């Protein structure tokens, strides 16, 4: 578990900074809820008139000022986009960094096989994502407590389970890609996250291209869809993991046989 310990030691500060930053916005958004809710009638009327813009963010046919919907829209963006970026950055770096920063020449002359290194790095990455999600959830409860509100338990759990799956899907994909790379760069990972986000906006506008829903994890983190579905959209989640899972497996197989760039 030496690699795992080293990864945690190396990343805990970054994880904490990301978690606290996103949590700060989560609490801030929640504390604004009572003021915003006072103008709900006006905002809902505005959304109706927003047309394609409202459609883009899937705001139609939804009372965005119902507490859980409000939380899902605001904090779904923070944890969806912010958490997705965190997952992408962490996963893109965690393997490729060894070659990019030449520490592979320190690590791999030791009696440890490459698959073991990858497994420990993967566990470290999962732990970081779990910690970020856990801190964000705690912040959500703190924020709700500050304004004297509470979340509907099942919808809150379904929503955060979907967001966690989304973060993990990005992480699994970027981890797999990282195995193929010789230099650490977060750009491809961030590009993918943004592409996923915009594909979801595109689907919201043009419902005829709904088959794209399996290409973006943002589709199944939409609070409106989760509520309509009565829980996490496991079919979309399952299919969403298919390609990242394949790239992940191929990445591990490739890494165990590749020439390490020193």
């Amino acid at each position, binding site marked *: 578990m*030496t690699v795992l310990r080293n990864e945690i030691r*190396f990343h805990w500060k970054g994880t904490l900074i990301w978690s606290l930053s996103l949590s700060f916005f989560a609490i801030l958004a929640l504390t604004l809820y009572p003021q915003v809710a006072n103008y709900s009638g006006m905002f809902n009327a505005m959304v109706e008139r927003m047309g394609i813009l409202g459609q883009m963010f899937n705001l139609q046919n939804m009372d965005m000022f119902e507490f859980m919907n409000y939380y899902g829209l605001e904090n779904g963006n923070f944890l969806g986009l912010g958490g997705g970026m965190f997952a992408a950055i962490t996963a893109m770096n965690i393997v490729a960094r060894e070659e990019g920063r030449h520490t592979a*020449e*320190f690590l791999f002359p030791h*009696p440890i096989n490459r698959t073991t290194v990858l497994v420990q790095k993967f566990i470290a990455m999962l732990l970081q994502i779990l910690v970020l999600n856990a801190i964000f959830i705690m912040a959500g409860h703190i924020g709700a407590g500050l304004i004297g509100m509470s979340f509907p338990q099942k919808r809150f759990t379904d929503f955060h389970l979907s967001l966690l799956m989304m973060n993990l899907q990005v992480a699994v994909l970027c981890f797999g890609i990282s195995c193929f790379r010789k230099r650490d760069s977060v750009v491809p990972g961030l590009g993918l996250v943004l592409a996923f986000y915009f594909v979801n906006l595109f689907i919201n506008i043009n419902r005829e291209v709904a088959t794209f829903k399996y290409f973006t994890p943002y589709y199944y983190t939409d609070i409106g869809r989760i509520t309509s579905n009565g829980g996490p959209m496991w079919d979309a989640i399952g299919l969403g993991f298919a390609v990242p899972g394949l790239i992940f497996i191929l990445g591990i197989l490739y890494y165990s046989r590749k020439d*390490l760039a*020193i």
Partner: protein
Amino acid sequence: MEAVIKTHQLTKRYRRARGITDLDITVNKGDIYGFIGSNGAGKSTTIRVLLGLIYTNAGRAEVFGLDVRRHKREILSDIGYIPSEASYYPGMRVSDALKMASQFRRRDCALEARRVCGALSLDMNRKIDELSFGNKKKLAIALALQHKPPLLILDEATSGLDPLVQKAFWDLIMDRHRAGATVFLSSHVLSEVQQHCTRAAIIREGKLVVEDSVEALSRSAAKRVTLRGCDYLPEDFPGALNITNINHNTSFLFRGDYKKLMRDLQAVEFSDLSITEPDMEEIFLHFYEKGGEQK
């Protein structure tokens, strides 16, 4: 003789670079083996194959009689490796890196780590990020020696070390050698190879040029002929290479029939003559620039 390292027709091709071709070397138990070649000759490629960092296109490499591809973990347990340029994880102290390496090896190396760091005057509490290149190299030495491995693979190990530390380094290496360790040393510093190595190989453009004892290499190479009181020697003097003239002394490398040399020298003005063994530099140049005898 028990071979600690043995390669057979080892070939590694890169997409854009040469790598190594049909490399056959044997390092016997107890050898201090010098592996000499210019930049890009294939020294580091060979070392990376032995460490399992890269894979070959053809041929076989064995360490301790085990195939490097199939028994990597067992082999690496008993190797100490010093890279030419060591990189470490940021934020670590010297003691953290030493502890991490010993955890990988599942051995308590604390005592030996302290002894080696002491011998090299390396403060174990220093942050690695703050260390100079030379001090990072000292850490690499401590990492390679702390588990007392039976095989040491040293890639340009003394580059960046001042002469005092180099001496301390060689004292440590010779201690390990006396305790039974085999040493594989890749180096540009030919005097180092001549001074410390028992056997050596010269690699050129990925191919082995020659492999023999340092003593035999000295014998097989050209001799250094110095003519005192001689100001001129024709450039086409039979068998003469690398002719130089300094302060009325003409010197050249010679390989050939010495009776004929004596006859040819009768036409040359000089007051004294010496024929000496060449130093490692000259052996290297002999085998390198002129191609030497291809194995």
